[in-house]
């Protein structure tokens, strides 16, 4: 496809999105659904702009993003370390890995009541649940990546007399980077979901709690503004990790 055609189609697809927003506006204005239930994009936009200029939305956004980020980093580090240990040892693969398969199908949100009962309704509980939930994609990807290193590379490490730590650090982990990064990208999505749910349950300040309160008070414009913001966070964080992924894996495209 030529560059010009590319631009044409991109503009076209953005245009379609604009049409959808326009359709939303028309439905909100003329369908007779009261704005309490369906605010138009104009009201949602005003609530969004108003929320930021009054200084209300920024700290909430920061709280949610921070929570999601820290939980994600925690989960990723733990996932890589534990995954590397399990993946690089035959004993651990035989004895420990099957147990992970038992824990994995439990929806992470189901752990929330348990964690709430143990450590109470707090920001720490949200962080633990995020870490608990976002660790799986990273952990499993690392186990897979580390245990499926090309046999010839293992032979190379033996010839170079690398010890286990060095083999892991210099060969197995770099080799599993694509898997680990893909796992981390999924983990980030999970982190956002759990941050929102955690805030709803614990009433910790953040966008998740904010949208719930807005819905209970029938402030639907604020509600939609919050949802749009959460969607933006999801979009931006996903694109950011994708770009980092592309940068780190640039050796692969050659």
């Amino acid at each position, binding site marked *: 496809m030529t560059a010009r055609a590319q631009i044409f*189609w*991109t503009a*076209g*697809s*953005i*245009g*379609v*999105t604009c049409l*959808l927003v326009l359709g939303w506006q028309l439905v909100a204005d003329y369908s007779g659904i009261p704005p309490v*239930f*369906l605010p138009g994009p104009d009201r949602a936009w005003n609530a969004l702009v108003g929320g930021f200029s009054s200084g209300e939305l920024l700290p909430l956004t920061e709280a949610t993003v921070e929570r999601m980020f820290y939980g994600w980093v925690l989960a990723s580090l733990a996932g890589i370390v534990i995954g590397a240990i399990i993946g690089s040892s035959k004993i651990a693969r*035989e*004895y*420990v890995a*099957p*147990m992970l398969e*038992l*824990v994995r*199908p*439990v*929806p*992470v*949100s*189901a*752990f*929330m*009541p*348990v964690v*709430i*009962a*143990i450590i109470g309704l707090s920001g720490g509980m949200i962080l633990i649940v995020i870490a608990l939930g976002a660790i799986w994609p990273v952990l499993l990807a690392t186990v897979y990546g580390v245990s499926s290193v090309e046999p010839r590379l293992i032979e190379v490490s033996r010839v170079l007399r690398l010890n286990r730590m060095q083999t892991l650090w210099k060969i197995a982990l770099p080799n599993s980077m694509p898997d680990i990064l893909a796992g981390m990208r999924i983990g980030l*999505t999970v982190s*956002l*979901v759990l941050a*929102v*749910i955690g805030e*709803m*349950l614990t009433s910790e300040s953040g*966008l*998740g709690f904010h*949208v*719930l309160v*807005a*819905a*209970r008070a*029938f402030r*639907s414009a604020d*509600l*939609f503004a*919050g*949802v749009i913001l*959460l*969607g933006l966070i*999801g*979009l931006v964080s*996903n694109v950011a990790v994708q770009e980092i992924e592309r940068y780190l894996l640039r050796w692969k495209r050659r």
Partner: protein
Amino acid sequence: MKLLKASLLPAFLLVIWEIAMRANNVQSDSLAAPSQVAIAFWNALFDGTIFSRTAETLRAAMLGLALGGGSALILSIFLGLVPPAARLAQFSIEVLRPVPAVALIPVAILTLGFGYGMEIALVAFATFWPILIYGMAAIVNIDQQLLDLARVLRLGAYARVTKIVLPATLPRYFVAFRLSMAVSLIIAVTVEIAANPLGIGYELMQASQSLHPALTFALVIWVGFIGFLLNSVLLFAQQRLFGPAGATMVAAP
């Protein structure tokens, strides 16, 4: 032998857990020994609550999956077969897809109220995207010769879809369906825990808030078991029905 090795660590942990609870004579509102969990599970199983609650959750999850997956199936076939439409829809999909389904919980409460309706709608939203994305990728990957064949045979749009496109992409749709099944259960339980007074998630929240740790643990294990069971059945079906064709995963674009 493999099974023995696999069960060694969980068994060991359970024994340690039991001994630790008994040795310290723990009377807790948040922890329970494995034996207590087993008893609570047994009781819940026989007074029938666990089954009726699970049925509620599964009903919402399945109806949501049918609604979300069904509409995604139709849309993905259309977008897959009409490339200009796919290009035009691309931006809208990229913008809408990252919206976390749980962020829509308050919207669903506001517009639909509590009950099956809102849960089904949220499950439908969450399962719509994976099936749409995997489906479009599957259709783009159809062997060009098959599509040429359809043209040579002068098949109409309907015949082309039912005789060429669907059979060629069925294994991949099935994989997407299996993944979405897991998503549907997760979202249903999550919605119940966060808001909706329905199903196993609500029961779980009740058990936790009324300080019944043994029942809470038992229900968490049960939910995991349901997820495991559904996935195993579908995985078995996938291997039986499609063999290696189902195993070749489409990378999500």
